[in-house]
């Protein structure tokens, strides 16, 4: 059991003082104080016992039901405690900490704040009224979700374990891959009310110390009631919270997380969230998949190029179609133009309305599928895509070419390894289509310039978001799209500014 920095001395980003008084519970430790604090908490369990049946001597044991293992409390704390005092042991907290009970993790607490925090984190506490101290034992319940295969980041040849909701299990999963004391874990708590535990992980000597410090500083500046979802955290620690582009790498794979730590990135795991974060994130990193590491470099490189092409199609295809169909028909090959004309005959809507309508329908279908249970979601997709789509085409409400363009762009969007990046691209897809409607290819070109400029000006923990593409070195550019053979890949990514540059001899 580690000491979490729960004493909150944080300041908000504008420098204003934290309005919560410190310490929160200034009263000395006593059973009455604890009872008062947890008053109204029906899961708060207490037991007052006389150790060794000694008259006048009473100790107070308390825990939160459900968060601790009842059997462990009885077997590992109450039973040895009673036996210890029966054999004439001294009834003091020091003796308890020194081994009177069997629990592996025991902490002496003399401040009520720390004691309350331990109890809420799943510890059982033995309170000594006379000494105004307490001893807490880590007896968390084992009722957690088992380690299962990640749902989003599947791998054919990689590990099959994924992160779970428990912080300590997740750190252990990473530790099992980097069995070296240079893997450091710094702990902190987030959320004024939730007091969510979080761990910053990095490989000492490999990660940039400035990035570790910066991450700690930003986490420390978060002053919210609770951190219960990824979004609660992400928008507070990224450099450009208004940008739709993802700025934290998410992964639910411990192997990917460990590899990125070895590459020089800094990791963040939050209790209750089965996804780990990595900083700094670059655009190119979102185009990589863990599978690449398991494949032959030539195959991985080809797949990488296909993903980049899919990215271009996902963003530009609908806008490009709208622009050329509305303004630049001379750019379309004659045969294709004739086919388009044929397919659009008798369709009552303009090209712009068709594409925007189809894009909105596509988003609606996607949202509907996400909200429904799997079997129904499948049915909705079939009804939406096949029946409604086909009927709309046959009824000449929309043209087949519009369906093809939107579907192709959608499929290309799904080819993106990062769902967050895919979501950002979907927004830009709409914006580009509107620009194409208004100004044709000139508008698309202008918006693309603007988008590239925005990406190029984004810094992420001191690293340019478009690195290594924007480094100006051809080798870096090649590295973005292709994967080197592993024996030749001797150096860590330059943009990460790792103190130790080499990853192999």
């Amino acid at each position, binding site marked *: 059991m580690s000491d979490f920095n729960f004493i909150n001395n944080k300041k908000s980003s504008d420098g204003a003082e934290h309005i919560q008084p410190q310490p929160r519970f200034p009263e000395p430790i006593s059973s009455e104080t604890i009872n008062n604090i947890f008053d109204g908490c029906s899961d708060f369990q207490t037991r007052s016992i006389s150790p060794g049946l000694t008259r006048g001597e009473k100790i107070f044991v308390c825990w939160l039901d459900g968060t601790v293992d009842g059997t462990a409390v009885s077997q590992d704390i109450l039973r040895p405690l009673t036996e210890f005092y029966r054999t004439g042991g001294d009834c003091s907290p020091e003796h308890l900490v020194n081994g009177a009970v069997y629990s592996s993790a025991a902490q002496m607490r003399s401040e009520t704040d720390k004691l309350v925090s331990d109890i809420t984190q799943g510890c059982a506490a033995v309170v000594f009224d006379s000494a105004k101290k307490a001893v807490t034992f880590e007896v968390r319940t084992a009722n957690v979700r088992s380690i299962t295969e990640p749902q989003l980041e599947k791998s054919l040849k990689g590990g099959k374990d994924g992160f779970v909701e428990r912080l300590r299990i997740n750190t252990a999963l990473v530790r099992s891959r980097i069995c070296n004391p240079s893997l450091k874990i710094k702990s902190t708590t987030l959320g004024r009310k939730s007091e969510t535990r979080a761990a910053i992980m990095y490989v000492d000597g490999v990660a940039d110390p400035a990035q570790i410090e910066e991450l700690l500083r930003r986490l420390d500046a978060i002053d919210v009631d609770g951190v219960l979802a990824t979004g609660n955290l992400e928008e507070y620690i990224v450099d450009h919270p208004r940008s739709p582009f993802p700025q934290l790498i998410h992964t639910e794979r411990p192997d990917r997380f460990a590899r990125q730590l070895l590459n020089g990135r800094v990791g963040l795991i939050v209790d209750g969230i089965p996804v780990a974060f990595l900083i700094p994130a670059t655009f190119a990193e979102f185009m990589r998949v863990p599978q690449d590491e398991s494949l032959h470099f030539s195959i991985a490189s080809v797949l990488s190029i296909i993903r980049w092409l899919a990215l271009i199609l996902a963003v530009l295809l609908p806008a490009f179609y709208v622009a050329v*169909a*509305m*303004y*630049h*028909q*001379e750019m379309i090959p*004659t*045969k294709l*133009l*004739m*086919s*388009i*004309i*044929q397919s*659009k*005959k008798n*369709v009552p809507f*303009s*090209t712009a309305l068709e594409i925007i309508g189809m894009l909105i329908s596509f988003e609606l279908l996607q949202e509907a599928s996400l909200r429904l249970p799997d079997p129904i979601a499948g049915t909705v997709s079939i009804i939406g895509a096949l029946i409604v789509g086909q009927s709309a085409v046959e009824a000449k409400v929309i043209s087949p070419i519009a369906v093809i363009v939107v579907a192709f762009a959608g499929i290309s969007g799904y080819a993106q390894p990062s769902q967050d990046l895919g979501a950002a691209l979907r927004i830009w897809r709409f914006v580009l289509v509107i620009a194409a409607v*208004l*100004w*044709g290819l*000139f*508008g698309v*070109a*202008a*918006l693309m*310039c*603007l988008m590239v*400029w925005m990406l190029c*000006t984004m810094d992420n923990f001191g690293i340019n978001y478009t690195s290594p593409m924007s480094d100006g070195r051809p080798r870096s550019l090649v590295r973005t799209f292709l994967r080197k053979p592993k024996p030749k890949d001797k150096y860590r990514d330059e943009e990460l500014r790792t103190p130790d540059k080499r990853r192999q001899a």
Partner: protein
Amino acid sequence: MKRCLYKCIAPLLCLSLLTGCSGGGIFTNYREVEELMIVQTMGFDLTPSKTAVSISGGGSSGEAKFTRMFTDAKSISGAEQKIQDYSAAEEIFYAHVNYIAMGWETAKEELAHCLDFIQRSPQMRMDTPLFVVSNGTAEELVLGSGNKEYDATNVLKSLERNLDARGDCRIFSAKEVVANLNKNGSALICAVKCVKASNALEDAKDELTALPDGYAVIKDKRMIGQISYEDALAVSLIQNEAGPCSITARTGSGNATVQLENCQCKIEPLMNGSELSGLKFDVKLSASLLEYDGRLDVKAAEASLQKQIETRLTNVLNMSKLTACDFLQLGGILEARHPFALAGMSKDFQTLLPDIYYIINVSTDINRSFDADLEGSP
């Protein structure tokens, strides 16, 4: 402050791309594709008093019908406008014109007008192939070719594909014609003749089709003569662009038809001091035997083929000499291959052309092919 400045300037720079769209500039381009009638073949029949334009387009596969239109006006633009006025619902769209045909008289008298229009038109493409109808007007070709299922575009596309495959006659684009005219005042345009398709097609009625008919020779933006389709191969040979076309050679007791495999033509300048006095053409041909009748004599076939090629080359070169017209672009070829030989000449190649003599050496080699047993042949 600096960062803020960049944030203001960069979007403005991006938006500067849209300056052409101000005042609704881009919206004049706006049209829905389904409202377009795509013109794919255009014909010009221009005389000093009348300008006739014929178009063919629309249609493709399925239910679409081909549209053929013809009108005359004082100018090509006027004719286009008139055609648009006659068109009921669709906008006539000229950006996909794939072929341009001109009548024989137009090529003689008004070629400059046609080329000028093609260059100036914002919709026409300079890489559009040009044709001259040797036995009539462009209108006959554009309106008369094809039927309900195909039109002049299909006819000319088929012709283009066939000539490309055979390599015995080239189709020059407007860009090439204009470039050649600008370079030495002469150029070639592929000539076609309109014939009734029923000559070969059993199902055909009155529709016309186009057959290759050599080249129209252009000098100073006027047609001055024609090279026959038979002699057209010589042009391809000189320009090292001859393809696998077939030639029938007389062998004494019968005919042998061969397919050209490899053709090389070396042109050497023959100098008299620092002046160019003649040109030597070394042509090497290898061909494979396709068919023969009677008793095959390979030597005789080679000799016959050699003579045929020599004759064709001589015909074309003599025409160039007589008309003082470098439509074969020999000056350009020599300039590229022997830049030093021509550097010190007092006159340009075009001026020297009537006075220079030619030496033509043709060597032919007919290969055995398809396992034909030539020794044991009857």
